[in-house]
């Protein structure tokens, strides 16, 4: 023995769920009882819904334990490591027999996420042992010319994974063709889309594949400097990036005369974003790196011609770069095998919201929404009805359940009025109010509008005002039409993607859930019972036992009633906070 490995998943989400304590505890036990196993750490494997995860690999096979706390960790160490018998009830996935967690991995094709959760992201040798940097070495050693590298990317059909969907190879070609002594390669890791965490997981779990992708891009476009623009809200991702860049430098993958090739110089620096959604837009991001307010500018010229410091610049998303080394290891034809005719390869989605198995999944393009939600995601918790998925965040839209056989590729998703976006997929059930969701996104874009274009700056504000009054029961006849008119003006008159797409959440919810808007406006009702001004909490006399819990918990003393007598809610005082509804053990508070 001695080959037994215990691996703890220490991504941000794992740590938030308590994985750090589990790791410490296992380490303490290992030292105190001198158990014979190798303890290491990895990042998120994507199965966020069962965090913290502990993996054990021994002679008999491969076991992934889920929902582990300190006590369970001890139990596993005792039974599995010391006793030799795996603790079946905590196993979520194993290569020995079928488990409920198996379907979560079975439908996936992991290319960008190939190393996430499989290795220690803080150790460059682990990345190298998984074929890391082999693609770069081959390209350098075999002296492959830039044009052939680009041809390979073009043939893979890879499109920008940040949401734009522009062909990556084409972008590289433009950047290569613009001659300059200084060129830049930028990685956009300003994942501002609320509801998306693909880039965070990738950077935390496999920073080297992003770095290798950037170095290959530099080789192809003849760039000299690289910048990773990463949100400051991702402290762990930043920490792992800093350490990965340092290690890559020590190994000679970054710096001067990379891998011995005379004149191939490339360095990567990190810029920490300061919190502005609009900086995800490439020209705003460049303005931000230059030190200014992150405001977009008119294109053309595109960054490929005039980008950072007015030099030719290739700018792509984290996931796009993470795909690159794989494409060169396995060939563009292998990559293009996955996906649809116009959308090749795979896409990582962050599944969240009202879903059983929330987490990160990588699926071939063209898979249907249904398959993602029900086969991988395990469906909706609590027997509620699936209502819609929101794709593309504040720039995207809601796709209703009846269109859930839509294949997920750039063009099919666009046809529904949503956008592919960077990969946030928020699932909604019948208890989600679509007007409230539209208001939520508009509130976001209104705050995040940089203020440069009048229609975006003021138009989003006017739209938000209308949505607020609709959700407060003051909606007027004609409001839906006004929203539509403003939406089209904002789309047509805004300079950048933020403004051009800001109305999408409103437009798609009007298109698919117009009846909900009408219920709010005409009947002053919120069918999903979410909009607080349109709902009332009442006591259902038959169930009320007079326990007085609700009256005691009510923050405004709106509930009165004697012990063991039916209580009543004074609607004039009630602030509709919902505390009584949550506290009542007898279902005696009803929402209407």
């Amino acid at each position, binding site marked *: 023995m001695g080959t037994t490995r215990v691996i703890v998943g220490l991504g941000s989400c794992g740590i938030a769920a308590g994985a750090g304590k589990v790791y410490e505890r296992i380490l303490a036990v290992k030292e105190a009882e001198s158990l014979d196993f190798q303890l290491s750490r990895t990042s998120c494997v994507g199965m966020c819904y069962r*965090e913290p995860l502990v993996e054990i690999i021994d002679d008999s096979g491969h076991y992934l334990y889920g929902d582990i706390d300190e006590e369970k960790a001890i139990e596993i160490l005792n039974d599995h490591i010391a006793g030799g018998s795996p603790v079946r009830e905590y196993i979520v996935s194993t290569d020995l027999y079928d488990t409920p967690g198996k379907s979560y991995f079975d439908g996936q094709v992991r290319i960008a996420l190939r190393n996430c959760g499989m290795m220690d992201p803080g150790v460059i040798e682990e990345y190298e042992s998984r074929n890391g940097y082999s693609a770069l070495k081959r390209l350098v050693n075999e002296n492959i010319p830039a044009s052939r590298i680009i041809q390979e990317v073009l043939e893979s059909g890879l499109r920008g994974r940040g949401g734009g969907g522009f062909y990556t190879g084409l972008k590289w070609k433009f950047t290569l063709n613009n001659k300059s002594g200084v060129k830049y390669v930028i990685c956009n890791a300003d994942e501002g889309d609320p509801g*998306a965490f693909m880039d965070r997981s990738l950077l935390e779990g496999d920073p080297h594949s992003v770095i290798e992708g950037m170095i290959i891009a530099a080789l192809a476009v003849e760039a000299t400097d690289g910048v990773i623009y990463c949100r400051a809200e991702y402290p762990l991702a930043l920490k792992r990036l800093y350490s990965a860049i340092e290690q890559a430098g020590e190994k000679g993958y970054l710096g001067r005369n990379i891998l011995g090739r005379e004149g191939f110089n490339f360095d990567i620096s990190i810029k920490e974003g300061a919190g502005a959604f609009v900086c995800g837009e490439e020209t705003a991001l460049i303005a931000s790196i230059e030190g200014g307010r992150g405001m977009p500018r008119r294109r053309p010229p595109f960054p490929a011609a005039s980008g950072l410091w007015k030099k030719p610049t290739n700018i792509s998303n984290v996931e796009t770069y993470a795909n690159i080394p794989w494409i060169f290891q396995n060939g563009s034809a292998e990559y293009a095998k996955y996906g649809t005719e116009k959308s090749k390869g795979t896409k990582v989605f962050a599944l969240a919201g009202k879903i059983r198995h929330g987490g990160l999944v990588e699926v071939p393009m063209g898979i249907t929404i249904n398959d993602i939600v029900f086969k991988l995601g395990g469906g909706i918790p609590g027997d509620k009805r699936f209502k819609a998925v929101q794709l593309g965040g504040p720039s995207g839209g809601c796709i209703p359940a009846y269109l859930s056989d839509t294949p997920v590729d750039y063009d099919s998703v666009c046809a529904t009025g949503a956008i592919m976006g960077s990969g946030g997929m928020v699932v909604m059930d019948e208890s989600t109010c679509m007007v409230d969701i539209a208001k939520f996104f508009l509130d976001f874009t209104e705050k995040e509008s940089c203020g440069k274009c009048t229609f975006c700056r003021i138009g989003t504000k006017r739209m938000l005002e209308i949505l607020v009054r609709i959700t407060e029961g003051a909606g007027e006849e004609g409001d839906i039409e006004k929203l539509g008119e403003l939406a089209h003006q904002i789309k047509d008159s805004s300079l950048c993607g933020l403004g051009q797409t800001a109305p999408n959440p409103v437009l798609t919810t009007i298109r698919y859930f117009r009846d909900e808007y009408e219920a709010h406006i005409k009947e002053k009702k919120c069918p999903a019972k979410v909009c607080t001004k349109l709902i009332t909490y009442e006591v259902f006399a038959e169930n009320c036992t007079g326990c007085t819990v609700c009256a005691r918990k009510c923050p405004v003393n709106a509930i009165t009633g004697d012990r063991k007598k039916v209580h009543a809610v004074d609607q004039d005082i009630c602030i509709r906070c919902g505390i009584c509804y949550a506290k009542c053990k007898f279902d005696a508070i009803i929402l209407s």
Partner: protein
Amino acid sequence: MRVERIKKVRRDLPSVGEVDTGLLDDVIKKYSGKKGIMIPVLQETQLVYGYIPAEAFEKLSRELHLNLADMYGVATFYSQFRLKPAGKNIIKVCHGTACHVQNAGNITQALEETLKITDGETSPDRLFTMESVACLGCCSLAPVMMIGDDTHGNLTGKEAVSIVKKIKLQNSQSLSGLTDNK
């Protein structure tokens, strides 16, 4: 527009005292003569003081030849920068999409009731500043909040309050520990 994000700080806060601008010398040395330094300079200044004091703006402007108006423009554009002192612990309550549909509003509400401050304010004991943020990227653990660098997931209002109370307790214990040692 983003400018609206500057939040008022309660007037009844005790004053923070003199700002020691000498603490900025290392920052100035590190960035002197480089380009594109505005944001990192402001970020490091905020790391030093927890916010960007007016005196720091003036000194940085003088010594790094940055335009004061540009600096103010940048500092008010990005949500990360604070122009008023913040509490010792910054509570970031996530209001991203996933957290929103999982009732992040309850978390904010519960914390507001416990700490008696509203979004963007600092508690009178300077222990907590509460901020709503767009997304912390832990969507599958929604609703989420972050205190310092620690992320707490799958919260209810009650759990959020008990985490905050624990920090309060630890703080008072460490304070009394300090006086005991004296």
